[in-house]
């Protein structure tokens, strides 16, 4: 983006108003679950480290998707097992762009098949979190210690059409959580998800036809 003085030139990227639709507009069904890798923590740490040595920092792209319920925006979250909440998204493949990777992951997690890549990603990244090591907490700034971060998570806003089918793997539950519940619920949802209301505060969310 260029720095321009004087009047704002709205090149489409700075569209701060977006529409959200009632939860009742959407249809939900399930598909066979994706089996997750059963591995010990030690194995996982070794796998992530060898991946890092080959490919460098792991980047995750995650989608912030909103619906309206009770005249308040609700965020779509996936719940795995009993208390692990995740945003729809996942890890980028080496060389894949953020948007392509996000669309691919959304199709895997929320659509009937992976070729249906019709997701509308709005604008640029709305927030970034970095981990200086695989087991540490994420922070919203680069670690100043000079070590390269091991993991980076980038959040993007995804606009829904007024109606859509969601097909969710059986081993995940899709929830719609109100923004007022996310705010200050860090223990339940972690710093990234509970910080989403603040990241969205600069947008004008237009709740269409309830």
């Amino acid at each position, binding site marked *: *983006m260029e720095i321009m003085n004087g009047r704002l030139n709205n090149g489409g990227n*700075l569209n701060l108003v977006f529409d959200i639709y009632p939860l009742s507009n959407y249809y939900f069904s399930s598909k066979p679950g994706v089996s997750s890798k059963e591995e010990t923590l030690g194995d996982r740490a070794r796998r992530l480290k060898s991946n890092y040595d080959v490919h460098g920092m792991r980047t995750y792209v995650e989608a912030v998707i909103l619906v309206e319920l009770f005249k308040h925006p609700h965020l779509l979250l996936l719940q795995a097992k009993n208390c692990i909440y995740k945003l729809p998204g996942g890890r980028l493949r080496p060389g894949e762009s953020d948007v392509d990777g996000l669309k691919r992951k959304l199709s895997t997690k929320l659509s009937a098949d992976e070729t249906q890549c019709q997701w509308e990603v709005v604008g640029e990244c709305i927030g970034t979190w970095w981990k200086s090591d695989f087991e540490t907490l994420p922070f919203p700034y680069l670690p*100043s210690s000079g070590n390269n971060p091991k993991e980076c998570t980038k959040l993007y806003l995804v606009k829904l059409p007024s109606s859509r089918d969601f097909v969710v793997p059986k081993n995940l539950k899709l929830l719609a959580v109100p923004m007022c519940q996310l*705010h200050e619920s860090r223990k339940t949802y972690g710093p990234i998800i509970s910080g989403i209301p603040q990241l969205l505060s600069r947008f004008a969310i237009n709740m269409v036809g309830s």
Partner: protein
Amino acid sequence: MVTSSVVNTYPLSSYSFGTKEPKMEKDTSVADRLARMKLNYMKEGMRTSVEAILLHNHPHILLLQIGNTFCKLPGGRLKPGENGIRFHLTINDHYTPFPPSDTPFCLAEIEGLKRKLSSKLAANSPNMQPNWQIGECVAVWWRPNFETIMYPYCPPHISKPKECKKLYVVHLSEREYFAVPKNLKLLAVPLFELYDNVQRYGPVISTIPQQLSRFQFNMIPA
């Protein structure tokens, strides 16, 4: 208004600091402040305040400290004519924080922020005014009642919020001269000190690191 997700930051040493006459706070206690806010609301409607995030170095933000502990961002309340929100059509009866960005009302808000910045941080003489480059809005906070609690969304069932506070990034140029009122201290606080430090800085300032996380900081050396 500057739109860019890249922010240039310069070392603290490239700025010069002087002092000027004190700017006393209008209220001596939180209760006084809320009472005055109520009076103003009855006269003028919802208060809009704008505050500035000025960054330098490996990002540090500039905060004004009053007394021994209370820190705030430079900024303040807009005058009724500068309030863009009042004249904006509410979409579906909900408060939206923005007028369309190319209408005169948004520019009035930007001009209001420049006025506040000059009042708090610039020398009084007219030929030493910094050229404030106001960037994007990064956060909006709403005050539903005459209390100190604010939220990053207008809570449901609140049709008459009492205050709307908008935080803007301000792009500093390489050299500036700041004149700080004698009763205030200007602090430069790194992002890692603000993050998660609600007790010291409050919910609005302590969450600025998250709101800045989407920008790329280009640290230009001395």
